[in-house]
């Protein structure tokens, strides 16, 4: 795989991860458990969509076929989306939403810290801005997980259930393929095994404070990077893309 091909695929993966999680979080808008938390979650969704725009624009340029960020977001099917399964999982109860964010944020932050030192100037610039945003995302999801875990019997139970449900999507975060390997060789990407160590430390520290039990690593879902998804992504995209699909080229 050439470096250009790998770079395009990686930019697309990052764009898809941030876009899909952003859309999931935006589904809470107007439905949050409290006004303050509603705004916090939509702020995070806006941070992520800003990042997604940067990655998808870059991916379109690298591909060189004239596709814009909007073409990539609204005119690809689920089989063409390359996000990890974790971020496409439904919102569930608030514990599921928080655990999903936490598991992703704990991976996202060290990845961005590595990208901020990337040899690729464009990825470096995107990451330097995003790292501050994601530092707050991780703080927000960690705080809530600790409150839930170390809260009432019911909140503890719901947090543990969410953790047990979503754990099988955590392995895929680090399951890079030839794309990540190619780019790690010349210092464009950090090494995923190193990210895993940081993720483990963050997860263990927060779960310990939250008095939650780290689930055992069983079968790990995967395939998102290749366009193989859970049933949930298609439904989400149908809703997200309906306007462009119904009125192609519509602008406002």
């Amino acid at each position: 795989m050439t470096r250009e091909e790998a770079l395009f695929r990686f930019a697309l993966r990052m764009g898809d991860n941030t876009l899909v999680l952003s859309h999931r979080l935006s589904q809470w808008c107007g439905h949050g458990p409290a006004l303050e938390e509603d705004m916090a979650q939509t702020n995070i969704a806006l941070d992520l969509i800003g990042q997604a725009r940067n990655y998808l624009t870059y991916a379109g340029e690298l591909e060189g076929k004239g596709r814009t960020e909007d073409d990539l977001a609204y005119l690809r099917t689920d089989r063409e989306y390359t996000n990890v399964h974790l971020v496409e999982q439904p919102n569930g109860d608030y514990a599921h939403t928080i655990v999903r964010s936490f598991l992703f944020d704990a991976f996202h932050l060290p990845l961005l810290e590595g990208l901020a030192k990337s040899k690729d100037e464009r990825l470096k610039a995107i990451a330097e801005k995003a790292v501050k945003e994601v530092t707050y995302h991780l703080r927000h999801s960690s705080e809530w997980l600790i409150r839930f875990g170390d809260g009432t019997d019911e909140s503890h139970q719901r947090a543990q259930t969410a953790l047990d449900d979503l754990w099988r999507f955590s392995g895929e975060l680090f399951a890079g393929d030839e794309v990540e390997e190619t780019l790690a060789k010349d210092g464009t990407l950090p090494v995923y095994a190193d990210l895993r160590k940081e993720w483990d430390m963050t997860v263990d520290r927060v779960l310990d404070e939250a008095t939650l039990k780290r689930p055992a690593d069983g079968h790990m879902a995967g395939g998102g990077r290749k366009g193989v998804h859970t049933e949930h992504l298609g439904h989400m995209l149908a809703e997200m893309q309906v306007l462009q699909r119904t009125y192609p080229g519509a602008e406002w």
Partner: protein
Amino acid sequence: MESTNKTDWPLWEVFIQSKRGMDHKHVGSLHAADAQMAIENARDVYTRRGEGNSIWVVRAADVHASRPEDQGSFYDPSDDKVYRHPTFYPLPEGVKYM
């Protein structure tokens, strides 16, 4: 001032400093379970457009206010005491911000 509903988070008053050296101004209130959550909620609700440099929060129940019915006896007596204003001498030239 405590909420009557025990399941509601308490109310907090929020003060934001927009720039170093400026004072913290009262910007509004919000609900939160404790001080840390109040600061984070204040960040999310009141600093979205770059207003913030520093945040103070204080529980609304800890703010003690003067009573409206005391207005007459508190403030009216100072109305006719102009000699308390430092306006009876000329400012030297070059003094700014007075």
